C-alpha cells in the first residue's frame, strides 16, 4: 500500500492542475459564501440559519472537488497512463484505495481552509447586516456545537463528494460523462424536488439525494423540520460514495483496463 500511496501522491503533486483546482475550490467556496452573506438582510427577529448561509459556498466548491476527483482516475484513462499504473501495482483494489486515501487527504485539508474561510467571512459580514445578538443572531462561533457540527460536517461532505466522483469516474472511465453524472446527481435533486407536487415524494427525494441529504449537516436551527437529520443525511451521502467506490472497484478488477 505504501508504494501505491507514494505513487499517487507524486502524481498529484507533480502536476499543476490539482493544486489550481484546490485553490480554485477554496476561492470559489469563500467567495460565494461571502457574496451570499453580504447581500442578505434581516428585517425582523429570527431571520433563519446563518451558519448554513455562511457555508453556501460549498454548493459551488463541490463542483471543483468533483473535477479533481474525476480527473484522478478518468484523466489516466484519457492519457493511457492507467496501463502504467496498473502494471506498477497489479493489485487493482490497492490502486483505487491509494487514490481514495490521497484524495481524501488533500480534499479534507483544502476543505478545512474553505469552510473556515467561509465561516470567518460570515462572522465578519453578518453583524453589518443587522444579524446581531439582540435579534437572536450571535456571531458565528465554533465553540457553539451546531456550528462546529456544520463546519466539520461540511468538510466531511466535500471529501465524500470527492469519493463519490472517484467511484463514478472509475465506473465510467470518461471525464466529461463522469462529471455530468456527478453534477446531475448533486444538482438535479433539489431542482426536481421543487417540481414534485406530492409532499411525501418530495421529502423522500430530498432524503435520498446525495446533496440535499448530505447538506442537512449544515443546519443549525429547526433540525426537527428537516427531511433528514444532520448525521443521517451525511450517512446517505456516504452510502452513495461507498456504493460508487464499490461498483468502481469491482469493475476495475473485472475489466481489462
Amino acid at each position: 500500500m505504501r508504494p501505491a500511496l507514494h505513487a499517487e501522491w507524486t502524481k498529484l503533486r507533480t502536476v499543476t492542475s490539482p493544486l489550481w483546482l484546490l485553490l480554485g475550490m477554496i476561492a470559489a467556496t469563500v467567495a460565494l459564501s461571502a457574496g451570499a452573506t453580504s447581500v442578505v438582510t434581516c428585517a425582523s427577529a429570527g431571520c433563519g440559519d446563518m451558519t448554513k448561509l455562511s457555508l453556501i459556498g460549498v454548493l459551488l466548491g463541490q463542483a471543483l472537488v468533483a473535477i479533481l476527483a474525476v480527473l484522478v482516475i478518468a484523466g489516466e484513462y484519457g492519457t493511457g497512463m492507467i496501463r502504467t499504473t496498473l502494471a506498477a501495482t497489479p493489485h487493482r483494489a490497492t490502486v483505487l484505495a491509494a487514490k481514495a486515501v490521497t484524495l481524501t487527504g488533500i480534499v479534507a485539508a483544502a476543505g478545512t481552509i474553505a469552510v473556515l474561510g467561509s465561516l470567518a467571512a460570515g462572522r465578519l459580514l453578518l453583524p453589518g447586516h443587522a444579524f446581531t445578538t439582540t435579534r437572536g443572531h450571535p456571531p458565528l462561533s465554533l465553540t457553539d456545537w451546531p456550528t462546529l457540527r456544520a463546519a466539520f460536517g461540511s468538510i466531511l461532505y466535500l471529501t465524500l463528494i470527492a469519493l463519490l466522483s472517484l467511484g463514478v469516474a472509475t465506473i465510467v472511465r470518461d471525464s466529461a460523462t463522469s462529471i455530468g453524472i456527478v453534477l446531475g446527481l448533486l444538482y438535479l435533486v433539489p431542482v426536481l424536488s421543487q417540481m414534485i407536487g406530492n409532499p411525501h415524494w418530495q421529502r423522500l427525494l430530498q432524503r435520498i439525494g446525495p446533496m440535499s441529504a448530505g447538506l442537512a449537516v449544515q443546519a443549525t436551527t429547526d433540525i426537527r423540520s428537516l427531511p433528514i437529520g444532520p448525521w443521517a443525511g451525511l450517512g446517505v451521502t456516504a452510502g452513495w460514495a461507498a456504493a460508487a467506490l464499490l461498483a468502481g472497484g469491482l469493475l476495475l478488477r473485472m475489466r481489462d483496463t
Partner: protein
Amino acid sequence: MTPTVTPYRSGRGAGRDGFVQLLHAEWTKFRTVLGWVTGVVVAALMVVLFALLAGVSSDQKGSPPVPVGPGGEPVTDSFYFVHQPLAGDGSITVSVSALRSSVPKRPGDLRPGIVPWAKAGIVIKESTRQGSPYAAIMVTSSHGVRMQDSYVNDTAGLPGPVSAESVRRLRLDRSGDAITGYASADGMHWTKVGTVHVSGLGPTAQGGLFVASPPSVDGMGTRGSVSTAVFGDLRIQGRWAGGNWTGGQVGPESPSFSGYPKNTSGSFTESDGRLTVTGAGDIAPAVRDTLPTGGTLGELLTGTFAALIVVIVVGALFITTEYRKNLIHVTLAAGPRRSRVLVAKATVLGGVTFVAGLAGAAVAVPLGERLARANGVYVFPVTSSTELRVELGIAALLATASVLALAVGTIFRHSAGAVTTVIVAIVLPYILIAIPFIPASVSNWLARVTPGAAFAVQQTLVQYRQVASNYTPYNGYYPLAPWAGFAVLAGYAVASLAAAAVLLRRRDA
C-alpha cells in the same frame, strides 16, 4: 533521345473545402458516434419523462375549483360583500372615512399594519358566484381611489389616503352594461374616474359595499391580513330591491383565498348611518402567491435541467474528443480555415440539439398538462402561441447551452473543466435563487446577468401592477422578457465562440 515522362496526375478533381463540405464532415462525425447520438436522444426523453413524473406525482383530486375570470385567467374573488339586488339601472353613493388593516406578526398576534392594496368601496357584480363579471370603485390604503373591472383592468382616480379628515366619496352608476365610477373629496365636485362596459351583468345584478384585504407581502412569503372600513352617507337610486342589506363572504373556500387571520372574521355593523365592514381576500387576478397549488409549464419542463446536463456533456465532447484522439490534426488539415471548422461544428451541434429539444418539449408540454389536469391540478392557462414560444425557447436554450459547452471546450481543450464550468454557470444560479433570505433584488440580478437568465423562456405567468406579490424568478416571474433572457445566454455563447475561434487560430492544435 530521352522519352518524355508524363508525371502521374489523378483523374479526380481538386477537393472542395467549402462550408457545405465542412458541415457534411461534422455531421458524419456526430452521427457515427453512438454515445453522442444516444446522449441527444436521452436528453429529449428526459424532458418527456420528467413531464410525465410531474404530471403523475401531483394529486389534487377533489380540491375546490379555481375561480376563473371572464378572460379565462385564474382570479381571487373572495371578499366581504354587503349587498342587495339591482334589477336594471341605478346608482349608489357612499363616503369612506377610514380604512385600517391588521397583519399578524405571529399566528394570532394581530398588529396594525399597512396593506397597500387593501380595498373598500362599491361593487356591482353579476352575482356572488366567484369569477362573475363586475365593476368596482374603491379607496385603497396606499394607491388612492381606483376603478377596477373584469379582475385585470385598473384605472387610477383621486390620489392620497383616506382618513376622517380626508373623506372620499364614491359613486357607481349602472346604465345597461355601462358602469361609470365617480369620486369626490368634498361631495360637491365629482370627477369621473372611468366608464367600463361589463358584459354578462344580466338583468339583476348584486350591488353594494365591499372590503377586501389581500395577503401582506413579507420577505419570501405572504401573510393573510384583514381590513376594516367605515362607510357613511349610503344612498341608492334606481331599481334597487330596497329592504335590508345582506352581508356575507364571497368565496370563503377557494384555492386562491388563504382565509382570515386566526381569531378574525368578516362582519358588518350599522349604527347612526355609519357602516363598519371588515373583510379579507381580494378581487383581482390570481398570482403565484395567492394560488400556490397552481402549476406552470416551467414546472412541467423541469426535465430541461437533466437534458441540459446531457447536451452540455455532448457539446464539450464534440470538440475535446478530437483533441484527445488527435483527430483535430486531420480536421484542421482538411479545413485549414479554423474559424469555419468551429462554426460548422456549432451549426451541426446546435441544429441536432435544437431538433431533439423541440421534439422533447412538443411531446412533454401537452402530455404533462393533460396528466396534471387529470390529477386535478390547476395549470395556469397559456395561449397556444405562448405554448409554442415555451417549446421553441426550451429547444433554443438546449441548443445554445450545447454550443456554449463546445466553445468552452475549445478554449479549455479539456472536457471535465468545460462541462463543469457550463453546468455551474447555468444551473447554480437557478439553485441560488431558490434559497430563502436571498433578497428579491439579488435573485433578479442573478436572473438577469448569469447564463441562467435563459430560463425566462419558460415564463408563462403575468405580473399585475395592482397585485402586490413576490414577483421573483423562484415563483416563476423572471425580470427579463423571454427572448431577452435567452439573448443573455446567446451572448455568452457568441462571446465564447469568438474567443474559441481566436484561440483556435493562434494556437497550434
